[in-house]
């Protein structure tokens, strides 16, 4: 007895020693990061709820049913089987140890064994998934492509070892009479049955061997965990607790340095703008990188990766993690001499640029950084709430504002924003053109000398740059104006008082320009007394409602589909004409995934007689980006295939007469895609792309013989 106690405790000491050293090292790396923004530690209630629902209830994991169920089984297995570890250590001291109070209850024995079986089943499922979806078979389209497969198999193997050694021990324990549970532990009883023929002495030996093996494997697993991506089992609850709530989508955060917001008009001497080196990330960012499980769900959804670009959110996070670990000796060295004394490889790691061509030693290649469309599909899927988009934009901020290194094509867009207030450089006077020729007068603020929005005006219609300057989007603006007029909703536009909301500048990383535009707009909106705003552009919608509060602009912002859906529901708009069209709907990323507005456009389509809606395979939260986000609308797409064409093919796969969307950029991209496919003979001539509001308008217009635009 004593021997096994000594061996058991000795193993424990060694394992804990190794693990603690590693944990301390990781902690010190984490401390290298900057403080976070102040919101991280507030709203304890919603954070606690997030941990409950995402960790205990495995909410995000269960989005993928099979893998999620298997993981839930293994996760709960780890928790429940903690009891067996307790029993094991107890048995080192006292052979017939059982947990006080409940330690002999049938239900507990049953539960423990149930989860042993569940975990083993989970392992079978995992193995099957890894074989079926192996990168060897599927190449890039496997979500495991780029992950450390060997380490993953080792982990599965170790979990398996934990399970069978446990069964071995418990079976032998039953046969030697020290097992706490008289009934219920069905799997252990089967194991006992198998071991019984070996005889009492053998079982006695096996019981000791079993307990040491079982504890040894668990301890070995502990050391493995802290040295691999499996560390997520400890880190995930913290990462989820400190992630942005309700999710890291929608608004982007302002630039913070050392936990305080940077004032661009009076910046501090040492303010760090964005992320130029790995140590510029906050401790939460470093925690993100360490928590990554290499599951690849993000990678599987990424529009860039799925069209042949080098960007994979998973590989990005893994790359940053590996770099942080590799650069740690350099960063933790406390003097120049200590740094000089480091081995060559470690010093070289310290000199690598965070963003730069991989051929020159850069950690993140510029093609990777600039391929991102900020669609958020990665953030949506990540089971441990990693904030990929935030990290990408923070790296972009450094590249744009400090290094001035960014795709030169975007320069034109930035200059137009600076000089003319819209990305195409048309100028503010052109913003009234769209309203010409409507059968009624659109009320323009200031026309009658107003100083603030009149009482009878219910909505300020924010037309946006695309809505007033792009030909396709102008049709949407006109439809919405006509529909509001039809429904008797009084609205007003700012006309040349509008300037670009600045969304593209912010996603590009040009935060200074964004703030100038935002402050200008907030000033205008506050001066005129704007209260309720309706927008047609999903990007304007996101920026006005989620980001302008950062600058003192708090308005009730509603997307045109939300307003129109409500008007239809209330009977103010009556769609009567039967359109007899096969329709599909594309969820814009900034309306759907970022802002959770999924139903209203569908309600509108559903209310129109004769519209047969077929959903695309990837819809709602899983919608596949059109490719224009992240300021990519103004950049050339030179690598791989076109994102918009990929999405167009998916839309055409539903055999529609009409492809609809609810954002002008989506409409531009899909229109281009359809036109290209038509030219290639891969789309029917009659397929058109329009906004949802146009469909509604066509059904409402009293004379069905109205000429098409």
């Amino acid at each position, binding site marked *: 007895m004593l021997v096994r106690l000594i061996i058991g405790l000795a193993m424990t000491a060694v394992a804990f020693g190794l693990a603690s050293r590693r944990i301390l090292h990781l902690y010190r790396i984490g401390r290298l990061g900057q403080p976070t923004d102040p919101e991280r530690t507030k709203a304890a209630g919603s954070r606690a709820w997030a941990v409950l629902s995402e960790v205990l209830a495995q909410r995000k994991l269960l989005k993928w049913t099979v893998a999620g169920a298997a993981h839930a089984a293994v996760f709960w297995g780890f928790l429940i089987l903690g009891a067996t570890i307790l029993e094991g250590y107890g048995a080192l001291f006292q052979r017939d140890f059982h947990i006080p109070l409940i330690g002999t209850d049938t239900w507990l024995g049953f539960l423990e064994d149930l989860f042993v079986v569940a975990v083993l089943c989970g392992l079978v499922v995992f193995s099957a998934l890894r074989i079926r979806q192996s990168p060897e078979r599927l190449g890039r389209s496997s979500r495991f492509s780029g992950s450390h497969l060997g380490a993953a198999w080792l982990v599965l193997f170790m979990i398996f070892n934990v399970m069978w050694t446990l069964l071995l021990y418990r079976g032998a324990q039953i046969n030697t009479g020290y097992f706490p549970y008289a009934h219920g532990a069905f799997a252990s009883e089967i194991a006992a049955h198998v071991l019984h023929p070996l005889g009492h002495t053998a079982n006695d030996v096996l019981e000791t061997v079993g307990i040491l093996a079982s504890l040894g494997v668990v301890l070995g697993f502990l050391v493995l965990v802290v040295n691999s991506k499996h560390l997520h089992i400890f880190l995930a609850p913290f990462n989820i607790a400190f992630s942005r709530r309700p999710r890291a989508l929608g608004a982007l955060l302002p630039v913070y340095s050392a936990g305080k917001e940077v004032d661009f008009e009076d910046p501090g001497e040492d303010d760090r703008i964005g992320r130029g080196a790995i140590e510029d990330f906050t401790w939460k960012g470093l925690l993100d990188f360490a928590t990554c499980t290499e599951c690849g769900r993000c990678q599987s959804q990424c529009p860039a990766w799925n069209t042949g670009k080098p960007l994979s959110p998973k590989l990005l996070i893994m790359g940053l993690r590996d770099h942080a670990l590799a650069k740690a000796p350099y960063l933790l060295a406390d003097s120049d001499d200590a740094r000089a004394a480091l081995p060559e490889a470690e010093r070289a790691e310290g000199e690598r640029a965070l963003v730069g061509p991989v051929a020159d030693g850069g950690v993140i290649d510029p093609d990777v950084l600039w391929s991102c469309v900020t669609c958020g599909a990665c953030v949506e899927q990540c089971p441990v709430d990693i904030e990929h988009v935030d990290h990408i934009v923070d790296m972009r901020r450094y590249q744009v504002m400090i*290094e*001035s290194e960014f795709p030169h094509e975007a320069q034109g867009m*930035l200059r137009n924003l600076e*000089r003319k207030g819209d990305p195409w450089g048309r100028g503010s006077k052109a913003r009234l053109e769209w309203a010409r020729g409507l059968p009624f007068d659109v009320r323009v603020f200031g026309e009658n000398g107003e100083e603030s929005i009149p009482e009878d005006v219910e909505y300020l219609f924010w037309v946006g740059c695309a809505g007033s300057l792009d030909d396709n989007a102008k049709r949407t603006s006109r439809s919405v104006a006509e529909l509001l007029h039809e429904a008797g909703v009084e609205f007003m536009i700012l006309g040349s008082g509008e300037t670009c909301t600045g969304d593209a500048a912010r996603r590009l990383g040009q935060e200074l320009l964004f703030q100038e535009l935002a402050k200008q707009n907030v000033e205008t909106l506050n001066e005129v007394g704007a209260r309720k705003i309706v927008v047609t552009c999903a990007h304007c919608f996101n920026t006005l409602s989620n980001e302008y509060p950062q600058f003192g602009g708090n308005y009730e912002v509603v997307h045109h589909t939300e307003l129109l859906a409500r008007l239809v529901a209330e009977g103010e708009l009556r769609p009567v004409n039967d359109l007899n069209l096969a329709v599909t709907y594309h969820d814009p990323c900034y309306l759907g995934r970022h802002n959770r507005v999924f139903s209203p456009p569908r309600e509108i389509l559903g209310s129109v007689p004769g519209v047969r809606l077929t959903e695309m395979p990837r819809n709602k939260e899983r919608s596949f980006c059109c490719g224009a986000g992240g300021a990519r609308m103004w950049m050339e797409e030179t690598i791989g295939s076109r994102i918009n064409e990929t999405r167009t093919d998916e839309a055409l796969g539903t055999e529609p007469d009409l492809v609809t969307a609810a954002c002008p950029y989506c409409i531009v991209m899909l229109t281009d895609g359809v036109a290209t496919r038509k030219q290639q003979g891969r789309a029917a001539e009659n397929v058109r792309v329009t906004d949802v509001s146009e469909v509604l308008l066509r059904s409402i217009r009293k004379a069905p013989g109205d000429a098409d635009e």
Partner: protein
Amino acid sequence: MRIIVLVKPGAELGDSDACAVEHALNIARRRMDVQVTLLTAGSADCVRSLRSALALGADDAVHVADDRISPYDALTLSRVYADVATDLGFDLVVCGRSADTPNLSLLPELVAARLATPVTAVSARSVPPRHPSFPAIAEARQKLISTRILPSNAAGAGAAFEPAITVRIRSSCPNTIIYSDPDPHAAAVRLVDFLAERRLA
């Protein structure tokens, strides 16, 4: 060594002027102890373009503040530039050659004629200089822009403060001429007439 870069009046820094500043900075980088000074003349919003040019890397600026000077009056501008440049002292004068701004395309030659030294003319490239970094913008806020005022009746300035010209800018297309005629020949004739009138064919 001092290089003076002539900046055309206006709130926005023109592409040719930005290229001229870059040219001057390229020279400055290759040598030690070179000062790049910007010089412009015109109304108060010229300061914005000076700040942009300072953010590109110029060291300091001189602004001749006078609302009377027309931004398209090459003759008067050349005189003001030449007078101030002579006063400041210089080793080299660089000036952007802008094809877009009415009447200013010969500004380098005019200034050269007055100073009796060659002036380096720099044309706008199709890819303008890079957007300045934020630290450069912040630093530019601290750089010195000294303001000068032209005396109301300077001796030797002659009839200077009568503007030499008045320019009216025609907006892009107030009078788009649309011609629909089934006869292609007639359309072609009208088009060539239009082009000939503008000395384009």
